[in-house]
């Protein structure tokens, strides 16, 4: 294993210390492992708190700032944060209008955030939760753990963050988050595995002419192996897989995220975006807004994920609202 780390055990505190030094505009509590905005809101507003395992950077700490999250609580690599930590994040940014937890649907995240919500309730903090579960690679049934939360998290955090900034009440912000999640679908392919510092070896081995299709963001293998193909064929499969599950029709508009998994050159992500754009155009679907780059990564995995979020005037208007975070910034 080759990594720019000191020890596998110290990755998170070391990275947090670096993050704190790099972003003095944010408050980083190195003990509680909570990143939060430094300025308290002038009037109470719904506070957005998200977190999850580390290794997905810039998610979530990179999305803390005006217009998006109020706080993030990063767990160990690929390990959800603990309830105390989530509670500390909620306490740090709660301003009286309630707290919205944005939780990616993984057993660990769901349980830890649920326990944190119980603790917060005991402290008199009102909590609502948006569960993000956008990954169509996973069967959605009450008998399984359900779909994973992946790329849609960015849209949920951006759009709910924008609405919270305007003073909307907790129920409304939570409802918007749920609506954005319901309007989003993702699918990912891996060209190469990820290596966690703790495991020290790749999560799977892949021959030089094969890819894993339907992977998540935790280095796990996908649903199946397939031969590597030219980008336009690969993208066609990914787009069609999403469309088969998504109610999108000609004339619809989407926000498209072509997301690198950590080790994919931006040059290739633009090749992919070009193919996504062309494939959707054939179906009469227009990409109204887009992001191309590393947003929800899986350490050093090579590959990409595509997330399509159906857009409507409210969604586009909230998307365009100002945001000022380390990883997403416009005005």
């Amino acid at each position, binding site marked *: 294993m080759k990594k720019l780390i000191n020890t596998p055990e110290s990755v998170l505190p070391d990275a947090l210390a670096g993050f704190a030094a790099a972003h003095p505009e944010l408050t980083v509590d190195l003990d509680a492992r909570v990143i939060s905005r430094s300025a308290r809101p002038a009037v109470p507003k719904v506070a957005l708190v998200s977190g999850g*395992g580390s290794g997905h950077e810039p998610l979530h700490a990179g999305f803390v700032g005006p217009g998006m999250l109020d706080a993030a609580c990063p767990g*160990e690599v690929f*390990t959800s944060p603990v*309830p105390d930590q989530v509670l500390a994040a909620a306490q740090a940014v709660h301003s009286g209008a309630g707290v919205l937890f944005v939780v990616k649907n993984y*057993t660990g995240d769901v349980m830890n955030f649920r326990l944190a919500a119980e603790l917060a309730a005991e402290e008199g903090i009102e909590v609502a939760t948006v569960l993000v579960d956008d990954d169509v690679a996973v069967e959605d049934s009450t008998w399984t753990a359900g779909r994973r939360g992946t790329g849609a998290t960015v849209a949920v955090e951006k759009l709910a963050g924008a609405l919270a900034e305007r003073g909307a009440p907790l129920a409304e912000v939570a409802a918007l988050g749920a609506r954005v999640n319901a309007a989003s679908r993702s699918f990912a392919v891996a060209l190469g595995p990820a290596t*966690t510092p703790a*495991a020290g070896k790749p999560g799977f081995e892949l021959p030089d002419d094969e890819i894993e299709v339907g992977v998540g963001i935790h280095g796990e293998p996908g*649903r199946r192996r397939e031969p590597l193909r030219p980008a336009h064929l690969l993208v066609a499969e990914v787009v069609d897989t999403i469309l088969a599950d998504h109610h999108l029709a000609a004339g619809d508009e989407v926000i498209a995220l072509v997301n690198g998994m950590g080790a994919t050159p931006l040059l290739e992500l633009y090749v992919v975006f070009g193919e996504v754009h062309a494939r959707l155009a054939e179906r009469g679907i227009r990409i109204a807004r887009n992001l191309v780059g590393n947003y929800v990564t899986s350490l050093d995995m090579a590959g990409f994920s595509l997330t399509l979020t159906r857009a409507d005037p409210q969604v586009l208007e909230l998307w365009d609202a100002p945001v000022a975070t380390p990883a997403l910034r416009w005005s």
Partner: protein
Amino acid sequence: MDIALALAWIRALAAAVERHRDELTALDTAIGDGDHGANLSRGFTAVTAALDAPDAPEPATVGAVLTRTGTILLSKVGGASGPLYGSAFRAMGAPLDGPTATPAELADALAAGLAALRDLGGAVPGDKTVVDAWTPAVAAFRAAAPAGLAAAAAAAADAAERGAEDTVPLQARKGRASYLGPRSIGHRDPGAASTALIFRALADATHSAGG
């Protein structure tokens, strides 16, 4: 079981987690995200440190040892196993409010731990989770309890190990392994494997204590 044995159990378990750390990680790498060994190691290192701390409060009950263990796991492990094992140990500790516990009381406590696991995670036997090792272990313990703690603990450990092994042919329906669909078949569930360590540590500690 007395307080010393409860402490010995937890220490034996912490040592076992350390010894099997890489094995648990390897199991989790195959069908999960490769952190189960690191997660439990982090948790039990913190548990041991808390027990060994110079200012550590002297536990007054068997349950206090288990509750404290659960609380630390809850606040140190994260992931799926943190809340699950944390809640299970806390649930086991709650009823054991005396300085000793009979095998029957311990059987009830173990059952309470299982109930907490099932309640929080929603898994049923056959889902390829900790529940698949914990369920037969509790049953075996209860069945052998009349024969004494040592016999019960040994039976539970054997049952847990068999339960863990029995997860191999299963397709996971809960936790990360479920994302793999049929590809989860053919691998032992890491959580079931660590549950087997919990029960084996109990048997070992009981055996050492001459119990």
